[in-house]
């Protein structure tokens, strides 16, 4: 027998569905539509009476090949007494089918096989058989509803698990947010204070730092001992905890080297690089940083280290840009950088000055993703060179924020203006 499918007969709905399927299926296989309709009716009567008497019954539908050719074959499956009772309640069954016989029980099922000869000797095409299978096996609305219900239950369980996960993530986020807040405080805490800057009589200095939401690792410092002003500015790659920690480590390393009066730029940056490099290795971090160190004494500035271009403005507004590529190397990227360290000397007369910044300024984007750019920065500096360092700082920052507009701030914004008194 070639099976076309099974239908469980367990309620009125399933009987109705079964009747429709048999009608449709048999119409496809038998040329006489009236026969199809009769078989569908009698099968549903039999099914209904089985359904009433017995807790579990099944109709197996298939194609049977026998001496009379190919038959549409229905096998009712139920317990013995229900099957007998149903047969008594449906006495006309035998007049509708060509052949009825009891099959040997299968597992706990007692089986009654009913055949209708289809009037042809060989099996219908695979395509027709598949069509018939689709009809018989198509899920009823009730079955679909049950499936849907089951899936919904699974989904709501999943949703519950997701919401637990979500709340864990929210907590984690809050915790990380708190960490970042702490780091931002740390970054601000370690900045030089206004009275320190004012104590340097030769230079008028103003600094600004605004951490981005995700906190970058910007750093600047102004240290004044033994008549030498050491100015440092740096930017750790990336954002977050590691960047913040490296920024603070760098501040401390610079301060220490300054305290021991290391005034050779090569040794200064080499030792600093070694210390930071080893810590980065220990942290298994991918980060590194740009760092420029400026030493000022008596109108002269020595610049070393690789960072953004350094902008020198002259009395009158003329701008000079100093490329720092050949003055150093990223700190913490490689363990040997002495060959790359150099220094550049700049002389400052009254009214001259230097502007230091991080890429948070030059790469600040507006809504059209256009960067602020170094040219614009130079123009702004040139236009306000006459003002005090503090005024210049405010004018520049205001112009950068004007450029950013409603756009998000992606990186820390750091600016340091120093001017020869």
């Amino acid at each position, binding site marked *: 027998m070639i099976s076309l499918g099974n239908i469980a007969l367990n309620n009125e709905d399933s009987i109705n569905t079964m009747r429709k399927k048999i009608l449709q299926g048999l119409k496809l296989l038998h040329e006489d539509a009236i026969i199809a309709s009769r078989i569908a009716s009698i099968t549903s009567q039999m099914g209904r009476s089985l359904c009433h008497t017995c807790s579990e019954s099944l109709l197996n539908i298939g194609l049977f090949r026998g001496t009379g050719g190919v038959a549409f074959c229905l096998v009712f499956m139920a317990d013995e007494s229900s099957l007998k009772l149903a047969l008594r309640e449906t006495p006309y069954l035998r007049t509708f089918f060509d052949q009825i016989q009891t099959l040997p029980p299968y597992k706990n099922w007692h089986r009654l096989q009913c055949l209708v000869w289809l009037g042809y000797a060989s099996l219908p095409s695979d395509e027709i058989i598949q069509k018939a299978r689709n009809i018989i096996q198509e899920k009823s609305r009730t079955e679909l509803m049950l499936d849907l219900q089951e899936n919904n239950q699974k989904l709501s369980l999943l949703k519950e698990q997701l919401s637990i996960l979500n709340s864990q993530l929210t907590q984690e986020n809050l915790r990380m947010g708190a960490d970042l807040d702490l780091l931002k405080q740390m970054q601000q805490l370690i900045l030089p204070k206004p009275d320190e800057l004012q104590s340097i009589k030769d230079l008028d200095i103003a600094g600004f730092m605004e951490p981005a939401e*995700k906190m970058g690792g910007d750093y600047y410092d102004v240290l004044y001992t033994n008549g030498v002003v050491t100015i440092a500015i740096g*930017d750790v*790659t*990336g*954002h*977050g905890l590691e960047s913040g920690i490296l920024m603070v480590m760098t501040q401390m390393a610079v301060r220490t080297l300054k305290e021991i009066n290391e005034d050779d730029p090569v040794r200064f940056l080499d030792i600093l690089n070694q210390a930071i490099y080893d810590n980065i290795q220990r942290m298994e971090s*991918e*980060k*590194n940083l*740009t760092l420029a160190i400026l030493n000022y004494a008596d109108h002269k500035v020595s610049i070393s280290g*690789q960072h953004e271009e350094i902008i020198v403005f002259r009395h009158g507004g003329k701008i000079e840009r100093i*490329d720092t*590529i*050949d003055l150093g*190397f*990223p700190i913490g*990227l*490689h363990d040997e950088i002495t060959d*790359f360290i150099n220094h550049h000397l700049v002389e400052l007369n009254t009214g001259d000055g230097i502007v230091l910044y991080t*890429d948070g300024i030059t*790469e600040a984007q507006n809504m059209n*993703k256009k*960067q602020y750019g*170094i040219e614009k920065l130079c123009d702004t500096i040139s236009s306000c060179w006459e003002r005090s360092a503090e005024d210049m700082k405010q004018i520049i920052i205001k112009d950068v924020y004007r450029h950013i507009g409603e756009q998000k701030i*992606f990186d820390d914004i750091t600016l340091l203006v120093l001017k020869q008194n």
Partner: protein
Amino acid sequence: MQEIKGEDYIVIYNPETESISFQGELTLGGPSEYQPIKDLLEQVVESETSAVTLDLLKLEFLNSSGISMLSKFMLKVKNEKNIKVTILGSNDVPWQSKSIKNFKRLLPSAELKID
């Protein structure tokens, strides 16, 4: 051909020409976001190839995390692989004029072809 694509960038590896082309603006947030590109670079040097070209001509912007990733790549090649690296770049692109020099310092055997 293998591709890694984002909103503003595309990285294409062409095994026939043994070249990795970077195009657009790469501003991913840190090493974890650069991992797929890093993996692609490492996969290429781990393969049997003896030369690789990094075509940066159309990479208009690369942020510091991206520069760091390429720098690490240079170091990896220098320390572990005998591969000829050629870098195509342009002095007209600000980040390139600055960083390609650092790449060469990290991997002195690299050949620079600068427009």
